[in-house]
């Protein structure tokens, strides 16, 4: 057994930021990761990191208050307002600290500047050389700090460099398969070495889940292929840790067709248009105020609505729309949107300087995850924490704003790191290491038996079940949702849950066999898929990304609450509970974009 103060599962931005906080306070930290840290999905964040620095002409007057309002409206009042307040206050410090760590943030260049719509603004001399920002959807001010269009890459490299500097141990090619716990407290995890296939146990006084999202359970996702919700699954498997708001799944308006690779919101932020099959710019027809820059849930719905009216472009890969950035000019496209340019040229054979790009809404982000309190402590198990997309901290409610996820990883990593340091120093109680060793032994045994059962051979093939699961989600739990379809999805996924107990291998299963890895993950993925469909079926309202055609109103009377899903070990079905959403500063109101249908508390009073 490997002993450490803190075990961080996941080496993306959230995990590494947490580890840095703890290592710099003198704790021993080990990070385990499916891949080398610099390959984490955090690198894929192209666009920006939201922080109210107010350095640009178009961000004058910006403040943490306005960032707070944008975030709460974006969440459709589903977020925890105390968390949002803490987050907006810390985001500027977080950006500046990463600047000190070496991120080459783009900087303010003073002088006049012509925007794509013809408006000319004056960047101020006094702001010269401070961190610049660009426009992003759903925000009042330009607030997304960026490093060219490789924001995630630059951040991940700077962050991983700090872990090198601090000598933090990283065990890459390792996957946590089960938490070691006694129903009260978490003591670490059992991990499979993806080089050798061997199992080993890590004993830690604090364990952090920072494994990112679950996007890949959907058939079409912008997420990296390692984003399979593994951390959420092992937390759910404990039976005592709830996952929050799993039905809240974001679709990004612009995944490319085919391939689902993300085209950053920066394209629209910098002035790109969405066009239909007649090359008509349709967004102003639906959203005269924010146009292409309403929040992502709204733009995605408008796109699907427009395609349903017959304005989509037919293709062998299904209907799509167009993204047009030609008018931004060759220089801007090739410098500020360079990664986008290479994605279009290399993967689609389309040059965005001269041609329009095929796009459609694609699964992008999981607002739901391991439910924690504001300090990052997971509900249900002491010694367990979560940060970043794997968590439901709950900064994003039912829709995340572009640029808030990158900022969340860094801010939450800091906050969670600090609270672990405090807990280890002040709250931690002594326990029997012998008892933990026995628990670790049992848990390892349990995982070993799962592997042996796979080798013994059930009749189900992992990739068949996986494809069926992805198709159910794509077809029935997508941008728009309906009761009847959701019921079908729930029934079909319940059946897949049962069938996933009978997986068998087609290969030998020796060593770092990838079929074993896939087969060990799949049952957890199907359970997450089930929670999404089940939570969506039960939530009889529309809020943020959760759009029910049979319940088109946001219902603040009955649904100003968060779903909490627990799944007892061995049970056929999960249990859903609900907790109120904390409203401290900003009462529910109109977002200022979107369909704006609300069942407000006042109406009920009048009725």
């Amino acid at each position: 057994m490997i002993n450490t103060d803190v075990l961080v599962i996941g080496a993306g931005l959230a995990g590494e930021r947490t580890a840095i906080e703890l290592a710099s306070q003198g704790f021993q930290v080990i990070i385990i990761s499916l891949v080398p840290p610099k390959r984490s999905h955090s690198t894929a964040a192209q666009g920006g990191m939201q922080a109210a620095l107010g350095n640009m002409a178009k961000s004058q007057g910006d403040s943490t208050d306005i960032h707070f309002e944008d975030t709460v409206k974006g969440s459709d009042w589903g977020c925890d307002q105390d968390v949002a307040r803490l987050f907006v206050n810390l985001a500027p410090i977080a950006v500046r600290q990463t600047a000190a760590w070496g991120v080459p943030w783009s900087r303010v260049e003073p002088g006049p500047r012509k925007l794509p719509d013809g408006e000319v603004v004056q960047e101020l001399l006094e702001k010269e050389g401070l961190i610049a920002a660009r426009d992003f959807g759903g925000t009042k001010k330009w607030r997304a700090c960026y490093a060219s269009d490789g924001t995630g890459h630059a951040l991940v490299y700077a962050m991983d460099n700090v872990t090198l500097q601090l000598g933090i141990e990283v065990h890459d090619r390792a996957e946590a398969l089960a938490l070691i716990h006694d129903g009260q407290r978490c003591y670490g995890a059992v991990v499979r070495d993806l080089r050798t296939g061997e199992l080993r146990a890590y004993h830690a006084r604090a364990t952090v889940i920072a494994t990112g999202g679950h996007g890949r359970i959907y058939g079409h996702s912008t997420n990296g292929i390692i984003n399979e919700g593994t951390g959420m699954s092992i937390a759910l498997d404990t039976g005592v840790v709830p996952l929050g708001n799993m039905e809240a799944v974001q679709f990004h308006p612009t995944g490319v067709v085919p391939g689902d690779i993300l085209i950053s919101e920066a394209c629209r932020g910098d002035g790109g248009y969405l066009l239909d099959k007649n090359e008509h710019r349709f967004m102003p027809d639906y959203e005269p105020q924010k146009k292409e820059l309403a929040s992502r849930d709204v733009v995605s719905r408008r796109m699907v609505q427009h395609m349903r009216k017959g304005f989509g472009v037919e293709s062998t890969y299904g209907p799509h729309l167009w993204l047009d950035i030609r008018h931004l000019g060759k220089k801007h496209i090739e410098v500020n949107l360079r990664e986008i340019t290479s994605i279009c040229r290399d993967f689609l054979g389309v040059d965005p300087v001269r041609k329009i790009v095929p796009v459609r809404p694609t699964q992008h982000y999981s607002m739901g995850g391991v439910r924690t309190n504001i300090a990052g402590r997971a509900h249900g198990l002491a010694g367990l924490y979560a940060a970043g997309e794997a968590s439901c901290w709950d900064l994003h409610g039912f829709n995340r704003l572009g640029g808030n996820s990158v900022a969340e990883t860094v801010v939450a990593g800091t906050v969670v790191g600090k609270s672990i340091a405090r807990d280890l120093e002040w709250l931690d109680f002594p326990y029997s290491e012998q008892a933990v060793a026995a628990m670790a032994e049992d848990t390892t045994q349990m995982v070993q038996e799962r592997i042996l059962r796979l080798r013994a051979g059930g009749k189900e093939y992992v990739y068949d079940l996986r494809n069926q699961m992805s198709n159910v989600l794509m077809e029935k739990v997508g941008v728009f949702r309906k009761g009847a379809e959701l019921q079908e999805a729930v029934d079909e996924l319940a059946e897949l849950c049962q069938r996933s107990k009978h997986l068998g291998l087609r290969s030998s299963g020796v060593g770092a066999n990838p079929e074993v890895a896939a087969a060990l993950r799949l049952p957890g993925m199907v359970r997450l898929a089930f929670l999404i469909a089940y939570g969506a079926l039960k939530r009889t309202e529309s809020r943020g990304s959760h759009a029910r055609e049979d319940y088109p109103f946001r219902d603040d009377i009955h649904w100003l609450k968060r779903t909490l899903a627990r799944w007892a070990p061995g049970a056929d079905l999960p249990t859903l509970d609900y907790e109120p959403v904390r409203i401290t500063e900003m009462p529910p109101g109109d977002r200022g974009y979107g369909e704006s249908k609300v069942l407000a508390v006042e109406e009920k009073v009048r009725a």
Partner: protein
Amino acid sequence: MPNRKLTFRVFRHNPYDPQSAPRVQKYEMQETPRLTLYGALTRIREEQDPSLQFDFVCRSAICGSCAMLVNGRPRLACRTLIEQLPSRINLFPLPFFRLVGDLSVDTGTWFREMGQRVESWIHDSEPFDPDALEERMPNDTAQTIYELDRCIECGCCVAACGAAQVNPTYLGAVGMLRIARFLTDPRDDRADSDFFEVVGTEDGVFGCIGLLACEDYCPKGISLTTQIAYLRRKMALTSLRSSSNGKGASAGAQHAEKAKTAK
């Protein structure tokens, strides 16, 4: 073109399986439009052979996981369109790195050691002040650093490098690029002479035999040979200065010079 019968000849070996011996295995499939090597390998794994090992993460050429030898040349598999290849495709793991299995190699360990060797982080003695504004930087400087920071650690440059094949402790173009990145960054306090020991040797700039393959095969199109030449000049100067002036004095003078040019 897009309806050819494709034949893949793939290197197979599982070093953790005592039964396994290195061999080449043949897979066949029908071509479909816009197929990439990522798509093709995924299909082989799911439909023909679930034991086949390879690495993908982003499948959009930004994470550097999937470099392999495609018909003898190092490339990112995710960005390789099948229609640009002949119908017979040979796939081998990257040389130089330790084999994990089949097409998967252990780049992570090597790159982490490289990062330690070049101390790939900002050396700054000032503690971070959370209440202060960020330090100003001209946007041109930020852009220049970003250019040098674009490396995705895929390993193509070292896999293609003649010097690396004969000298296992060679730093590689990627290591030298990393040094150039920090030398250029005004936030880093190190002077040229601080880098001399790690890069002013046969394992560094003086080990480069000038075959230029690193730049030819860099999937990000980074000007690696320019960076090596730049470092070589700097290191040659550093060695001259340290032999005439004494190391400490020249380091201070260079640092002042670097700060001046950056600002």
